[in-house]
């Protein structure tokens, strides 16, 4: 196995790219995809540590993260569709009605 530091580095880079996507893009769907990327980076590290410690618990947690991601995508895309119905756009800056 390649040493764990490389996996930590790769996971951190993917997570940071996802964070940048959430912060810089204004398309709601791209923001959602960036969140998926961040969840994925965490999953990769779970599996890498599971391999390192020879413990299956890490792999099981990946399942739960996947389930949460699937639920989040279903609800999130429904929200995006609802926002598009009312605003006719999915630019996240336009959906600021609740802003104080």
């Amino acid at each position, binding site marked *: 196995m390649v040493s764990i530091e490389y996996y930590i580095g790769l996971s951190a880079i993917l997570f940071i790219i996802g964070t940048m996507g959430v912060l810089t893009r204004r398309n709601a769907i791209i923001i959602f*995809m960036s969140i*998926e990327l961040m969840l*994925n980076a965490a999953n990769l590290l779970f599996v890498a540590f599971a391999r390192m410690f020879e413990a299956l618990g890490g792999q099981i947690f990946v*399942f739960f993260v996947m389930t949460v991601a699937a639920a989040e995508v279903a609800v999130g895309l429904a929200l995006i569709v609802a926002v598009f119905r009312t605003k006719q756009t999915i630019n996240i800056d336009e959906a600021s009605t609740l802003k104080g």
Partner: protein
Amino acid sequence: MDANLTVFIILAVVAIGSAIGMLLNRNAVYSALFLILNFATVAVFYIILGAPFIAMTHVTVYAGAIMVLFLFVIMLLGAEELTGGTTKFDWQKPAAVVLALFLLAELYVVIFFRDTVFAEFRALADFGTPQNVGRVLFNDYLLPFEITAFLLLAAMIGAIVIARRVRRKPGN
């Protein structure tokens, strides 16, 4: 250089490159396709790390179900681009030919050198198999497993309720 490290670096470059492609692409459909490439690369990492069952689930759930949902919503809303301006890809056809040749070479290596290439994976064979994962999942993590069932049910109902078209009553 160590063969494992070489494979890791190649895969890491593809993963980071596709993530950056997803981040920078103006067109949401291309972003989604880049993300699918990223998920496929991560699935290969899972196989390397001795988690074949996770890798298969990852491809089915993420690259299969979730990204199809994304693409469906993108095309349903016609939300490919927020701003105008299209880019042309004249280099796509030659790039496709080169990548297809790479794929052919990979298949050749996989089919004819499988005994030597996959020797290390075979040593890991009984770590992340469906049997072992299932045994741990249904013995040690049974309660979280049941809770995720409720989570999925709640998400399903929530998605249906939120995305439903609200009909105004004729009286209002």
